[in-house]
């Protein structure tokens, strides 16, 4: 299953709904391009909804980190929403769970942006 991404605006926050696999190749590229396009359009509050992401490899983790740092370097915030158990475990193992601001409720996540 390839990765799909769609964006919507909720109270000034760009919510990017992702589904499928974020892996080396197409999945990582789609994620990279989607975040880049959102930032280029002036959106600095980005919420990645990973609820339908079925799989992520080290390349996908790298893209999440890269997106996080690039948004932060532009003065924005990137947060994660609805981690599956697999993705949650991967972020724990790689010590990234405490780096990312992770939410499990969209309304709470939206309200948490400054």
């Amino acid at each position, binding site marked *: 299953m390839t990765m799909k991404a769609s964006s919507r605006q909720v109270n000034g926050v760009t919510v990017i709904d992702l589904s499928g696999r974020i*892996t*080396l*190749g197409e999945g990582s590229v789609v994620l990279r391009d989607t975040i880049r396009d959102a930032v280029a359009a002036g959106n600095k509050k980005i919420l990645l909804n990973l609820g339908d992401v079925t799989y992520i*490899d*080290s*390349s996908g*983790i*790298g*893209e999440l*980190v*890269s997106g*996080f*740092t690039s948004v932060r370097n532009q003065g924005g915030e990137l947060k994660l929403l609805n981690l599956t158990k*697999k993705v949650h475990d*991967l972020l724990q*193992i*790689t*010590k*990234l769970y405490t*780096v990312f601001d992770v939410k499990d409720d969209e309304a709470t996540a939206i309200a948490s942006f400054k």
Partner: protein
Amino acid sequence: MTVQRVSYTLESSLDSVNKAEEEATKIATRSGFDEDEVGRISMAVREATVNAVLHGNHYDTSKRVSLSFENTGNELIITVQDQGPGLDPTGVADPLAPENLLKQSGRGIFLIRAFMDDVQFRNLEPGTEIKLIKRVHATTSDHKEASQ
């Protein structure tokens, strides 16, 4: 349980990475591992094959990746070989170190080690072999062995 072994020769491409992961999922499942363990094994195999294709063979279409699965009854042993310049695993930076935590790459070997019981590297001169070993737990050792 008799030893079951199956091997593949793969091109240096992303398709090979996906095939290696798919085969690992099938064989680990047939070896009796539970769903979580199958996921860990298949990810370790995926990461090892990515290293072979990307960092070992550099997508060189003239070079191949050798992949084998062996079920000894006590262990599932997976071997991935590339034809690249060789890898020094001691030279790989710790991705958990604070200065590396936000780096984009460098987590593949760490994840392989986290998900497998034992990981061994061998320099093939030229090329690198990585051997991934997962012990079959007592509760799963009586399951049907790999049929290939």
